[in-house]
Structures are given as structure tokens and as C-alpha cells.
């Protein structure tokens, strides 16, 4: 899999692989060096979707395609709920995350981590950060209300957790853990997700630390 540790969708795929016990051999796609715009990568991923996964003859790209592939490849019970109502809830929250959270989490990552990696003299755009935080806060408030009395978004652990845990993780490592802490239900949900074990390991450990992002370090998931 080619991806980047400071890229949210790459991290969702690593997290899914860890959750489902799929061995992933990751290869760095250096977004700070614009490798995703090069012709070699575009030959694999014509629209620049990241990450890109290959197995045998299969090459596909983007979290939307890779996550369900890993879910099935990992065997065992699918993370997708069977009941229609839970499936609907799962996908509603995935859509909320994709369109109402991801752009703002990306702003935090760009302004506070990635741009300074490319240019040490870069001054983060505080107005953009503040706007992103405000937008995230609005969505967290709604999610917190929904999670009152619920363990997970779709009753059981599902794809919704695979999407949302990286959003909260990146808020935390960019120094905005207070956004989570002030929403008790959301915080309990995040603690619950982080404490899940697959064997002796927590799949959440597949999510990169700030130092790993700055060191452009993509770890193997086994």
C-alpha cells in the first residue's frame, strides 16, 4: 500500500488492516514532495486517490474502495452491520465524517504539521485553523448527542469507527484534544475504541504519532 502517515485516509486503511489482521506492507508516498502528482503514481491511481493498494492483479485506490476490500480479505465477521437500520446509521456517520469533518481535520494537519514540514519558516494560518475548529466543534456536538447511551455509532463496532477514530486522533495530536474532552459521550466512545484489542495489540496503535508523521514513517501492520 502506498500512502502517507499524515494522510487521514491512509490511516483509516492501516487501522482497518490492524483491526482485521491483514498484513500490510506500506510504502511511503511523499505528499510533501508531491509524489502523488507524478506520472508513476497517476498510472496506478489516475485521479490521484490516496492511498493505493495492490494485491496480486488488483490495484485500487481511495479509502472507499480499500476499506471494504480489507474487511473481506481479513476474514471473520464483516464490520458492516447486517441490519438495515444499523447499516443506515453507520453510513450516515461515515458521510458526516467525510464531508463535514475531514476537510477541517485536513486543514489542521496542513496548517500545523504538513506545511511546516515542507517549509520550516511557514506561519500557520490561524484564521483557517479557527474556522476549522469551529466547524469540527459543531459536528462533535451533534455526534456527542447521538452517542449518549450508545457504545458505538451503529450499535456494534463498524466502519463508522474506522472512519471516525482517525479524525479524533489527528485532532488530538495536533493539540486539540480539548475539543474531544469537552464532549463526554464522544470522549468515552474514543476511549472505548482506543482500548479495543486484537490479540495483545490495540488496532488504534496503527495510527501514527506526530513524530512518525514528521519522520514520514509508515509502519508495517501485521
Amino acid at each position, binding site marked *: 500500500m502506498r500512502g502517507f502517515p499524515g494522510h487521514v485516509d491512509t490511516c483509516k486503511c492501516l487501522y482497518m488492516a490492524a483491526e482485521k489482521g491483514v498484513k500490510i506492507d506500506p510504502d511511503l508516498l511523499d505528499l510533501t514532495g508531491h509524489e502523488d502528482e507524478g506520472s508513476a503514481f497517476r498510472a496506478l491511481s*489516475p*485521479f490521484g*486517490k490516496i492511498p493505493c493498494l495492490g494485491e496480486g492483479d*488488483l490495484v*485500487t*485506490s*481511495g479509502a*472507499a*474502495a*480499500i476499506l*471494504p*476490500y480489507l474487511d*473481506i*480479505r481479513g476474514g471473520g465477521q464483516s464490520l458492516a452491520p*447486517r*441490519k*438495515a*437500520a444499523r*447499516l*443506515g*446509521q*453507520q*453510513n*450516515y456517520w*461515515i*458521510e*458526516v465524517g467525510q464531508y*463535514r469533518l475531514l476537510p477541517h481535520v485536513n486543514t489542521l494537519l496542513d496548517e500545523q504539521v504538513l506545511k511546516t514540514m515542507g517549509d520550516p519558516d511557514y506561519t500557520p494560518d490561524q484564521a483557517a485553523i479557527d474556522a476549522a475548529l469551529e466547524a469540527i466543534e*459543531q*459536528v462533535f456536538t*451533534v455526534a456527542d*448527542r447521538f452517542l449518549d447511551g450508545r457504545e458505538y455509532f451503529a450499535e456494534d463496532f463498524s466502519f463508522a469507527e474506522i472512519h471516525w477514530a482517525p479524525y479524533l486522533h489527528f485532532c488530538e495530536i495536533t493539540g486539540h484534544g480539548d475539543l474531544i474532552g469537552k464532549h463526554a459521550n464522544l470522549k468515552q466512545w474514543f476511549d472505548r475504541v482506543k482500548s479495543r484489542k486484537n490479540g495483545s495489540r490495540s488496532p488504534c496503535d496503527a495510527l501514527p504519532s506526530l513524530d512518525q508523521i514528521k519522520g514520514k514513517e509508515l509502519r508495517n501492520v501485521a
Partner: protein
Amino acid sequence: MSDLFAFGRAARTESSDASYGSEGDMKKTQYVLQLLGFPGHADTLKCLITAIEMGMETDSAVLDILEGEDESGDYLAVSPLGIVPALKEADYYVSGESGIMSYIEARGLGKRLPPKNAALLAEQNYWSDIACTEVGPHVNTLVKEQILGPMVDSVYMVNTSGVEAARKALEAPLDALDSQLAKNTFIIGNYSFADIHWTAYIHLLYEAGEGELVDARPNIKAWFDRIRTHKSFSGQNVVAYDLLPKLADIKQKRLNSISIDDY
């Protein structure tokens, strides 16, 4: 709120709940779905197509997004982040294309739409993702500039550079789909969610007067000709295309309901 159609333009809609079963007819679906959306809104169309393909009776009503009804307190009580469309069945509510399409599919009749094979599932989702991210925003621009803008303002000035940019941006994903369809009857071989996503966008391109973009690509054109006569995936004698809102429906803010007669 007990009825999704209790406010705004939708309040003028007659619900089939009142007449449901009044003639002693038994239907396989326990409840009729309520879909609240807008005829010029791609995500609403996707949900309508899914309901037809899965043989789910649906009462549709218009959420007038041109009048800001999606930002009203009544709608936010149903969909707290204002995501359109919204669906109700009995006491279950969900909003947004992804939640609604998957809910209807799982509730629907007959075999399941998503492939069980991992590689095919990934391919379905890849093409759905390309539709949503590489095509949707530009189709929305064309629909806004050429249909919705003039509906709101009779002297609306079309942003011609925006229209040109949208047309240009659509070339690459349409070329990619045309290549993909050179070898397949439907986008990944069998009919799937990918066809539903693309049907909504291609249909809106035609209604926005941009059919040339499609007609110039023979494999997409041939695929859409098949879509136009495609009977429901669940085997009912209904064609989704026939119930999609045409330009006059969009301008009149009309959305078809779905009635299934051949259980």
C-alpha cells in the same frame, strides 16, 4: 415529529399512508418509505433510483432547498446537520445518500446489490467514489448555473467561465468511464451501486442541456440507453429512469413517488 412531510412544501403532499391497504390489498413491504428531497439534487435521485431498483414503495415529497427549507428548524430536527435528502420508515429516520441508499438496499426485495467478491466490491466503491468526488461537484455546478439559478432569479446571469470549467473538469472522469464501459454491460459487469451513482449524474447532465458530453462517448451513451430501459434489479416491472424528474419536473419542483404493483 411523526411525519417527515409535516412542514414546508412537503406538507402539501398527500401521503399514501391514509389509503394504504384500504382496498384490502396486501403488499410485501410493511411500511411505505417517505423520502424528502429535491428533484434537481443528485443525492435525492440516487435514493429514488435505489428504492425503485430494490422494489420499495416510496412516498416522495419536495424539500424546497431553493427556499432554504433544508436550513429550517423543522428539517434540522430530522437531519441535525442539514444533510439532504431524508428518509423515514415507521419510527426510523436517516439522512444523506449513503445512509439512505444502504438502508433501502438492505430493506429491499430480492438479492443484494453489493458484490460479495472483495475485488468487485472495491471496484464498485472505486467507481462510486469517482462519481461522487470527480463528477458530482461539476454536475452540481452545471445544474445550479443552468437550471436552479434561473429558477430562483429570472434575470440570473450564468457564470459562463464556471460552466466551461465544469465541462472541462468532467472530461477526464467521463473518458475513464467510457473506457471502463468498453468491456462491461454495466460499470463493474453486473448492475451495482456504481451504476446508481453515475445514473443520477448522467441524467442531470442531460436535463441541464449537457447531453453532448455524454453523446460524444459511445460506451457511456450505450450504457445510458440500457439504463433507460433497465427493469428493477429486484425483478419488479418498473424502470427507474421513467420515474426520474425531468427538466419540467425540476422546474415545477415535482418528485415522483414509487408504487409497486407486481408482487
